């Protein structure tokens, strides 16, 4: 029986570091997510005073405690947080640490500690998945040799062990700039412990990276621990992700073609992802867990959330229901 739950990622409401900091803005966004038909919200890690939803310390500073934030979510008619996305390369003003790398063995204890903190808070917020960026961007590191893959696998096994103690699953989120796109995510996945480390299937990132999400479900369906639904509007077929600082030059600025926007809400005009086919494949693979809908880079986050809500209510949700009914 399928136990798919729908959540929405709030990161689209924050175009840059000093936007979307006020309580009433959060309230309106969360109410929009709720009324669009989603029961949970996915957070993105952030640091400092202008990231009230970025980490447990900021939640406590802004809402009194992590539990206080859960109450705030409930007052907006949301059940809780589904998941938290964290890139260890993001510095932490709260811990006074710089970027951490899973490739550096010396950083692993700090990465494990930080993940444990996030998992503790997630559990309190009703969440069940910590998503991580497993390796840096392809343009920012040397190609990953076997030794490097081994170090990264050991890091995420250790992190997965720590988060599991809090009932939180670890999911590796491979984006289209990832060094794993060149060096093949399967090499890493296959070297991690399936009991500790899962895969996050992000339909938009994979499609922009020229990887068919349906193929990933076919080969690694049993390792999928989390799903993100967003559409892709273009493919990085010139392999621009290999450039240094591709986060700004390619992802944000659109590369040589100046692609205005790589991603959109599922079902957007010109979208390349076949969401009904992917939903069907996930159901057939027995996926149970969160599907978090996203619309990275949306100029109109509320509109994107409502349009995604329409697709889920009218088409994707009924597919899940049908399967549930058939299984009873």
């Amino acid at each position, binding site marked *: 029986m399928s136990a798919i739950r729908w959540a929405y990622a709030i990161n689209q409401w924050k175009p840059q570091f000093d936007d979307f900091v006020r309580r009433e803005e959060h309230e*309106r*966004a969360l*109410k*929009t997510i*709720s*009324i*669009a*038909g989603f029961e949970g919200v996915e957070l993105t890690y952030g640091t400092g005073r202008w990231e009230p939803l970025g980490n447990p310390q900021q939640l406590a500073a802004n809402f009194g405690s992590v539990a206080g934030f859960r109450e705030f979510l409930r007052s*907006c*008619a949301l059940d809780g947080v589904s998941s938290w996305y964290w890139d260890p390369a993001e510095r932490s003003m709260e811990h006074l640490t710089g970027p951490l790398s899973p490739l550096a063995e010396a950083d692993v204890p700090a990465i494990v500690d930080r993940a444990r903190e996030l998992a503790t808070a997630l559990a309190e917020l009703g969440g069940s998945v910590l998503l991580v960026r497993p390796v840096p961007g392809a343009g920012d590191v040397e190609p990953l040799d076997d030794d490097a893959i081994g170090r990264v696998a050991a890091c995420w096994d250790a992190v997965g062990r720590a988060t599991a103690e809090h009932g939180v699953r670890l999911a590796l989120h491979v984006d289209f700039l990832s060094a794993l796109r060149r060096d093949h995510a399967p090499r890493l996945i296959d070297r991690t412990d399936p009991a500790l480390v899962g895969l996050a299937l992000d339909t938009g990132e994979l499609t922009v990276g020229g990887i068919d999400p349906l193929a990933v479900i076919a080969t690694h369906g049993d390792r999928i621990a989390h799903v993100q639904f967003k559409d892709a509007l273009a493919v990085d077929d010139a392999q621009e992700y290999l450039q240094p600082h591709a986060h700004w030059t390619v992802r944000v600025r659109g590369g040589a073609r100046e692609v205005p926007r790589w991603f959109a809400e599922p079902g957007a*005009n010109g979208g390349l992802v076949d969401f009904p086919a992917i939903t069907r494949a996930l159901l057939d693979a027995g996926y149970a867990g969160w599907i978090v809908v996203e619309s990275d880079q949306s*100029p*109109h986050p*509320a*509109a994107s*959330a*409502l*349009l995604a*809500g*329409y697709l889920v*209510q*009218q088409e994707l949700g009924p597919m899940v229901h049908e399967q549930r009914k058939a299984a009873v």
Partner: protein
Amino acid sequence: MAWTKWSYMDHWVTETPQGPQPPSFNRASMDRYVKQLSALGFTGFDTFFFYLPVYAGMYGGVPGFERYLQDSGFDKITGIFSAYPSATRYTAPHVRETHDRIVADCTNTLRMCEGLTGVENFIVMPTSTYHQTEPVTDDTIKVVADLWNRVGKLTLEHGMKTTCHFEFWGAIRTREQIDTFLSYTDPELVHFFCDTAQHTIAGVDPIQLFRDYRDRCTGFHFKDTKNVDEHEAYRTPPDPELMAPQVTRWFYEMGEGGLVDFPALMKEIVRSGYDGWLTVEHDKAELGGGSYAEATAVAKWYIDNVLAEAEAEVRAELEAAR
């Protein structure tokens, strides 16, 4: 059971390659608009008389447009809003000589609605601006009433109720003027439409007004305001709604700390046995950088989470009293 008959008044502005435009900019833009309203759970659609030719052109007739709405989860077009806010030498409700022209204009609008599932309300602004109409005497109100009695008879023949939506800047705006107007009109032909914000701005209690005219009330615009007009802004020429110097934005969505007590109104509506459509309206939600999508989402959230509770409370009381 929670109220299911929520409709939306067609006011959106949306981003297009040509800047902010109504969603009727093109069919892709309409698709995005209608899907968003449908995702929020609106099943009725109210629109303006001046959009009917636009939609007819886009969808092969107004019935074609309604079928498109129905394919997207709507029940039907529920109301048509018609108005002559600025008096002209051809159309001025307080000038009897223009009535034939107004009736003819309404006839044209009704003709465009032929073949629809069942529009319930023909919503009208009963007068033009106050400053163009004053002095507002009993005789003025009588002339206006005569017009809407005529139109009311006409729309009934097309299955629609003529229902009057009073503006804070219109010539019939105070409680006394509204009472006089309604006493001069035939209750079978002319009905009352309660815009919560407009009455509140004019210093009239919309809940008491509904209580007193429940039998003639055929609809509502649920919208909020943060200001009562205390500076005679209603007299501002040429338009008090967007040009009053004292207040730059009059209207807000529900749930933003405005003056209207919507839970109390909802309770009154349920107690009264009213079973028509309730309409959400946003005027100028984009002022101050707002988004219609978010404003509509927040308003519908308020309906499903706050008003639903108020409704359930009264239904439980009524059930217990049976």
